[in-house]
Protein backbone atom coordinates (compact mmCIF):
# COMPACT_ATOMS: atom_id res chain seq x y z
CA UNK A 1 0.00 0.00 0.00
CA UNK A 2 2.20 2.87 1.26
CA UNK A 3 1.54 5.94 -0.84
CA UNK A 4 -0.32 4.10 -3.62
CA UNK A 5 -3.77 5.39 -4.41
CA UNK A 6 -6.74 3.43 -3.14
CA UNK A 7 -9.07 3.25 -6.15
CA UNK A 8 -11.49 0.78 -4.54
CA UNK A 9 -13.94 3.40 -3.15
CA UNK A 10 -14.37 4.93 -6.62
CA UNK A 11 -14.74 1.47 -8.21
CA UNK A 12 -17.42 0.54 -5.70
CA UNK A 13 -19.34 3.76 -6.29
CA UNK A 14 -19.09 3.16 -10.07
CA UNK A 15 -20.47 -0.34 -9.51
CA UNK A 16 -23.41 0.99 -7.51
CA UNK A 17 -24.37 3.78 -9.90
CA UNK A 18 -23.95 1.38 -12.82
CA UNK A 19 -26.32 -1.16 -11.27
CA UNK A 20 -28.87 1.60 -10.57
CA UNK A 21 -28.63 2.50 -14.26
CA UNK A 22 -27.41 6.06 -13.85
CA UNK A 23 -25.34 7.77 -16.48
CA UNK A 24 -22.73 9.20 -14.14
CA UNK A 25 -19.08 10.13 -13.99
CA UNK A 26 -17.13 9.23 -10.86
CA UNK A 27 -13.96 11.04 -9.80
CA UNK A 28 -11.78 10.47 -6.77
CA UNK A 29 -9.06 12.21 -4.75
CA UNK A 30 -7.52 11.56 -1.39
CA UNK A 31 -5.45 13.00 1.44
CA UNK A 32 -4.02 11.51 4.67
CA UNK A 33 -7.39 11.58 6.44
CA UNK A 34 -10.01 10.90 3.79
CA UNK A 35 -10.72 9.36 0.41
CA UNK A 36 -13.15 11.55 -1.52
CA UNK A 37 -15.39 10.15 -4.24
CA UNK A 38 -17.45 12.60 -6.29
CA UNK A 39 -20.37 11.61 -8.52
CA UNK A 40 -21.43 13.79 -11.44
CA UNK A 41 -24.26 13.37 -13.92
CA UNK A 42 -27.70 14.36 -15.17
CA UNK A 43 -30.04 12.23 -13.08
CA UNK A 44 -27.89 11.67 -10.00
CA UNK A 45 -30.20 13.69 -7.71
CA UNK A 46 -31.81 10.41 -6.62
CA UNK A 47 -28.49 9.60 -4.92
CA UNK A 48 -28.91 12.68 -2.71
CA UNK A 49 -32.54 12.21 -1.65
CA UNK A 50 -34.59 14.34 0.69
CA UNK A 51 -32.32 16.31 3.01
CA UNK A 52 -29.35 14.24 1.81
CA UNK A 53 -30.78 11.03 3.32
CA UNK A 54 -29.86 8.77 0.40
CA UNK A 55 -26.37 10.30 0.21
CA UNK A 56 -25.81 9.47 3.90
CA UNK A 57 -26.91 5.87 3.20
CA UNK A 58 -24.58 5.64 0.18
CA UNK A 59 -21.71 7.01 2.28
CA UNK A 60 -22.38 4.51 5.07
CA UNK A 61 -22.49 1.58 2.64
CA UNK A 62 -19.42 2.51 0.62
CA UNK A 63 -17.41 3.02 3.84
CA UNK A 64 -18.46 -0.43 5.11
CA UNK A 65 -17.79 -2.08 1.73
CA UNK A 66 -14.30 -0.54 1.54
CA UNK A 67 -13.41 -1.36 5.15
CA UNK A 68 -14.52 -4.97 4.69
CA UNK A 69 -12.29 -5.50 1.67
CA UNK A 70 -9.09 -3.70 2.55
CA UNK A 71 -9.10 -2.67 6.20
CA UNK A 72 -8.69 0.89 4.94
CA UNK A 73 -8.56 3.16 7.98
CA UNK A 74 -9.24 6.44 6.27
CA UNK A 75 -12.76 7.79 6.07
CA UNK A 76 -14.51 7.62 2.70
CA UNK A 77 -16.39 10.79 1.84
CA UNK A 78 -18.91 10.43 -0.99
CA UNK A 79 -20.41 13.54 -2.56
CA UNK A 80 -22.87 14.04 -5.41
CA UNK A 81 -22.64 17.18 -7.56
CA UNK A 82 -20.82 18.86 -4.63
CA UNK A 83 -24.00 18.67 -2.51
CA UNK A 84 -22.02 18.51 0.74
CA UNK A 85 -19.96 21.54 -0.12
CA UNK A 86 -23.06 23.55 -1.05
CA UNK A 87 -24.71 22.44 2.18
CA UNK A 88 -21.64 23.37 4.22
CA UNK A 89 -21.65 26.86 2.72
CA UNK A 90 -25.37 27.28 3.38
CA UNK A 91 -25.07 26.15 7.02
CA UNK A 92 -21.96 28.27 7.60
CA UNK A 93 -23.88 31.30 6.31
CA UNK A 94 -26.85 30.53 8.62
CA UNK A 95 -24.42 30.13 11.53
CA UNK A 96 -22.78 33.49 10.81
CA UNK A 97 -26.20 35.18 10.63
CA UNK A 98 -27.16 33.67 13.99
CA UNK A 99 -23.78 34.75 15.47
CA UNK A 100 -24.38 38.34 14.32
CA UNK A 101 -27.77 38.30 16.01
CA UNK A 102 -26.20 36.91 19.18
CA UNK A 103 -23.52 39.65 19.23
CA UNK A 104 -26.10 42.35 18.46
CA UNK A 105 -28.53 41.33 21.20
CA UNK A 106 -26.05 39.89 23.73
CA UNK A 107 -28.44 36.91 24.09
CA UNK A 108 -27.97 33.19 23.24
CA UNK A 109 -29.42 32.18 19.84
CA UNK A 110 -30.80 28.65 19.27
CA UNK A 111 -30.62 27.30 15.74
CA UNK A 112 -32.96 24.70 14.20
CA UNK A 113 -32.41 20.97 15.02
CA UNK A 114 -29.68 19.39 12.88
CA UNK A 115 -27.85 16.09 12.44
CA UNK A 116 -24.41 15.71 14.04
CA UNK A 117 -22.70 16.27 10.67
CA UNK A 118 -24.70 19.46 10.12
CA UNK A 119 -24.00 20.76 13.63
CA UNK A 120 -20.29 20.14 13.09
CA UNK A 121 -20.43 22.32 9.96
CA UNK A 122 -21.90 25.17 12.05
CA UNK A 123 -19.40 24.70 14.93
CA UNK A 124 -16.51 24.67 12.42
CA UNK A 125 -17.78 27.79 10.65
CA UNK A 126 -17.81 29.76 13.93
CA UNK A 127 -14.81 28.29 15.76
CA UNK A 128 -12.57 31.26 14.88
CA UNK A 129 -15.18 33.89 15.77
CA UNK A 130 -13.93 35.03 19.20
CA UNK A 131 -17.15 36.93 19.92
CA UNK A 132 -19.23 33.78 20.36
CA UNK A 133 -19.11 30.25 21.81
CA UNK A 134 -21.10 27.41 20.20
CA UNK A 135 -22.56 24.40 22.00
CA UNK A 136 -25.02 21.62 21.11
CA UNK A 137 -28.13 21.25 23.25
CA UNK A 138 -31.20 18.98 23.37
CA UNK A 139 -31.58 15.25 22.80
CA UNK A 140 -32.13 13.08 19.71
CA UNK A 141 -34.14 14.72 16.94
CA UNK A 142 -34.25 17.98 18.94
CA UNK A 143 -30.47 18.40 19.22
CA UNK A 144 -29.42 21.82 17.93
CA UNK A 145 -26.64 24.41 18.06
CA UNK A 146 -26.87 27.25 20.57
CA UNK A 147 -24.67 30.30 20.09
CA UNK A 148 -23.66 32.22 23.24
CA UNK A 149 -21.87 35.55 23.56
CA UNK A 150 -18.31 34.91 24.83
CA UNK A 151 -17.58 36.30 28.29
CA UNK A 152 -14.93 38.84 27.22
Amino acid sequence: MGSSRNTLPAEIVKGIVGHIGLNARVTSWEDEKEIHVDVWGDDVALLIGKGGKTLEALQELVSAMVAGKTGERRRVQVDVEKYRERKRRRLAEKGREAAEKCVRTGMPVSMEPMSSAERKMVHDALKDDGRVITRSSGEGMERHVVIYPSEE
Partner: protein
Amino acid sequence: MKELLEYIARHLVDNPDQVEVSVREGEKSLILELQVAPQDTGKVIGRNGRIINAIRTLIKAAAVKKGYTNTIVDVKD
Protein backbone atom coordinates in the same frame (compact mmCIF):
# COMPACT_ATOMS: atom_id res chain seq x y z
CA MET B 1 -32.48 -4.30 -8.14
CA LYS B 2 -31.46 -7.92 -7.56
CA GLU B 3 -28.03 -7.28 -9.07
CA LEU B 4 -27.60 -4.07 -7.05
CA LEU B 5 -28.39 -5.81 -3.77
CA GLU B 6 -26.12 -8.75 -4.65
CA TYR B 7 -23.30 -6.38 -5.54
CA ILE B 8 -23.56 -4.49 -2.25
CA ALA B 9 -23.89 -7.64 -0.13
CA ARG B 10 -20.94 -9.40 -1.79
CA HIS B 11 -18.69 -6.48 -0.87
CA LEU B 12 -19.80 -6.58 2.77
CA VAL B 13 -19.46 -10.27 3.62
CA ASP B 14 -16.59 -12.73 4.10
CA ASN B 15 -18.33 -15.38 1.96
CA PRO B 16 -19.48 -13.61 -1.22
CA ASP B 17 -20.25 -16.93 -2.97
CA GLN B 18 -22.99 -17.59 -0.41
CA VAL B 19 -24.90 -14.38 -1.15
CA GLU B 20 -28.31 -15.04 -2.65
CA VAL B 21 -31.17 -12.70 -3.41
CA SER B 22 -34.70 -13.84 -4.17
CA VAL B 23 -37.25 -11.48 -5.69
CA ARG B 24 -41.02 -11.27 -5.52
CA GLU B 25 -42.62 -8.66 -7.65
CA GLY B 26 -46.07 -7.04 -7.81
CA GLU B 27 -47.28 -4.34 -10.16
CA LYS B 28 -45.65 -1.54 -8.19
CA SER B 29 -44.15 -3.46 -5.28
CA LEU B 30 -40.90 -5.29 -4.92
CA ILE B 31 -39.81 -7.66 -2.18
CA LEU B 32 -36.13 -8.58 -2.04
CA GLU B 33 -34.95 -11.25 0.34
CA LEU B 34 -31.24 -11.38 1.06
CA GLN B 35 -29.58 -14.56 2.22
CA VAL B 36 -25.98 -14.70 3.40
CA ALA B 37 -23.81 -17.22 5.28
CA PRO B 38 -24.96 -17.35 8.95
CA GLN B 39 -21.67 -15.88 10.19
CA ASP B 40 -22.10 -12.92 7.77
CA THR B 41 -25.56 -11.87 8.97
CA GLY B 42 -24.14 -9.25 11.33
CA LYS B 43 -22.11 -7.71 8.50
CA VAL B 44 -25.17 -6.95 6.35
CA ILE B 45 -27.25 -5.76 9.32
CA GLY B 46 -24.63 -3.69 11.13
CA ARG B 47 -24.63 -2.15 14.58
CA ASN B 48 -28.18 -1.06 15.47
CA GLY B 49 -29.22 -2.02 11.93
CA ARG B 50 -27.22 0.81 10.40
CA ILE B 51 -26.07 -1.16 7.36
CA ILE B 52 -29.39 -2.82 6.49
CA ASN B 53 -31.16 0.53 6.90
CA ALA B 54 -28.65 2.17 4.55
CA ILE B 55 -29.22 -0.70 2.07
CA ARG B 56 -33.00 -0.16 2.29
CA THR B 57 -32.70 3.58 1.73
CA LEU B 58 -30.50 3.16 -1.35
CA ILE B 59 -32.50 0.27 -2.86
CA LYS B 60 -35.77 2.17 -2.37
CA ALA B 61 -34.37 5.25 -4.11
CA ALA B 62 -33.15 3.10 -7.00
CA ALA B 63 -36.45 1.17 -7.18
CA VAL B 64 -38.52 4.37 -7.46
CA LYS B 65 -36.59 5.14 -10.66
CA LYS B 66 -37.84 1.80 -12.04
CA GLY B 67 -41.44 2.57 -11.03
CA TYR B 68 -41.69 0.58 -7.79
CA THR B 69 -43.36 2.67 -5.10
CA ASN B 70 -43.29 -0.04 -2.44
CA THR B 71 -40.01 -1.84 -1.82
CA ILE B 72 -39.15 -4.19 1.01
CA VAL B 73 -35.67 -5.56 1.73
CA ASP B 74 -35.43 -8.38 4.25
CA VAL B 75 -32.60 -10.51 5.57
CA LYS B 76 -33.41 -14.22 5.76
CA ASP B 77 -32.39 -15.90 8.99
